[in-house]
């Protein structure tokens, strides 16, 4: 998928778990897992805003665009 979700990296950088993020932004673990594993087809601005607030980061820290065939890193 061209848009890669780097939620794992940001969580590790902030020393947070998916569970604690889920509790702090009031989004279910199931939905956050869908986002984390790259299965999500779309992300709401409200979700992005909540994650950025909780992780004190920018949307670009969570999402990255990769060209077709480019390695996911």
């Amino acid at each position: 998928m061209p848009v890669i979700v780097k939620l794992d990296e940001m969580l590790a950088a902030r020393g947070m778990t998916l569970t604690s993020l889920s509790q702090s932004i009031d989004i279910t673990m199931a939905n956050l897992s869908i986002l984390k594993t790259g299965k999500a087809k779309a992300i709401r601005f409200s979700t992005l805003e909540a994650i950025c607030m909780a992780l004190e980061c920018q949307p670009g820290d969570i999402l990255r665009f990769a060209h077709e065939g480019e390695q996911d890193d």
Partner: protein
Amino acid sequence: MRDRGLRIITGLLRFANGANWLLALSFAAAILLSFVFGDVIAGHLSAKYPHGNVTGTILTLRVMGVLGIIASVAVHQIFTRLLAMVATVRTGDPFVASNSQRLTRIGWALLTIQVLDLVMGLIVVTLDRMGVDHATWTPAFTGWIAVIMVFALARVFRVGTAMRDDLALTV
């Protein structure tokens, strides 16, 4: 989900489907009997229409019986698909791709019935030319509207289901 209206519809559809098969069996029996009692029928027709085409008339009646059986198969498709669609409400999710496919199948079955109706029209014209008594026939325009409507609804259902599936993975 328990819904009284759907329970009544399910019962009606089951009854109508059973009646439809009885009708199909009676068509098949009529065709079979037309061979068994071929001479009796031919004699009766010769007496009624002394200058008529008896063989042609019997053949036309048999063709009408075959058309009736084909129509029953189409009606069976409609009733069983509707029953399956109603059943999806009970299981909790009627807005699924399989229901749009069922609706498309119903559309094709309705189209088949409409085409059979046109063939019936041709048969009525043929019987008229042979000077044989027949029931009146007029084109069923509402049936054609129903065909278009069901195909349109099936498409809307299909696209709507896909859109919902898309939204399901929106976080």
